[in-house]
């Protein structure tokens, strides 16, 4: 089965990217990411002044896993989830909000961005992103992922791993 991580493409994706940029500008945060709950990055933006981010794959995987673990903890107490997830060190922090049941909005900030501001503008961005998702309930575009996809991907696997035998 192949499912869209989120119904987000074309003009809607561009609008959400614009909202991520607004979030960074208004909150003075470093990075804003929309990731799915399996830990795959859907969209991301970086403030012009921010240093190069760490591996986004690693960041998204760890945040999604951490979020799942937090949900499991909340469920031990009979709650569906914790309302918000904030992590702060001396230098950097992350703030995570759920986007429906498929995705997470992640704001990464440093000491120059007050947490209150980060929360306020992340929640505002979340509302607007959800509004975009509500508005754009079009059919997902069709991707050529049939037999030809598998044949081509299989060929790339052969190329990457050779005959699969250990030397």
């Amino acid at each position, binding site marked *: 089965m192949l499912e869209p991580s989120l119904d987000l493409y074309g003009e809607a994706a561009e609008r959400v990217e614009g909202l991520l940029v607004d979030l960074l500008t208004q909150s003075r945060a470093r990075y804003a990411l929309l990731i799915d709950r399996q830990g795959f990055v859907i969209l991301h933006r970086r403030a012009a002044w921010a240093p190069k981010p760490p591996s986004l794959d690693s960041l998204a995987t760890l945040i999604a896993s951490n979020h799942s673990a937090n949900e499991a903890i909340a469920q031990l107490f009979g709650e569906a989830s914790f309302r918000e997830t904030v992590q702060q060190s001396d230098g950097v922090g992350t703030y995570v909000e759920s986007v429906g049941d498929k995705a997470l909005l992640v704001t990464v900030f440093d000491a120059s961005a007050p947490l209150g501001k980060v929360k306020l503008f992340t929640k505002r961005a979340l509302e607007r992103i959800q509004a975009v998702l509500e508005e754009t309930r079009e059919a997902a575009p069709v991707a050529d992922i049939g037999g030809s996809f598998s044949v081509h991907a299989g060929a790339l696997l052969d190329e*990457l791993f050779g005959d*699969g035998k250990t030397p």
Partner: protein
Amino acid sequence: MSTINFAAREINFKLVYYGPGLSGKTTNLKQIHAHVPVESKGEMVSLQTEDERTLFFDFLPLDLGKVNGFKTRFHLYTVPGQVFYNASRRLILRGVDGVVFVADSAPNRLRANAESLRNLRENLAEHGLSLGDLPYVIQLNKRDLADALPVDMIRAVLDPDGVAPLFEAVAQRHVGVIEPLKAVSKLVLEKLAQRA
């Protein structure tokens, strides 16, 4: 399940290495990380205890390249094998596309292998999945042990119907590491083609 990201034009698959504690799941990922070209791999992340046992998971992203205009990637995870980390194992199976079951060939680990496989079935069921529906291969690791159990004996316990492809390995020496990864990846692609 496989996910498609139209915004970034990416197709992603999630493969999970499952098996009892100390069977060699993390070693598999370390070997893959060490032998795949730099341009095809991301950082490997390991969440371990102080004594280097997996606490939550290991993670390694592999980039296959562009297929039909879509960047195609496999995300490899291990689960913590120790019995008491079951909540973590269940979380990691969320959205799984394929499983490599890493079995230990030592005679005193036969029961642990069987219990881990039963635990895998139970945790998959929590996600509405079953091994019968999921691309799945078995790796028999530590074949270099002097007292390694015969392959047929382990197969009789783990896969008596002989359904799953089975690979012998010595993961520490990078023997039999790539074959199961390649096999499960191809099974995942075949399944995608059937459903598309």
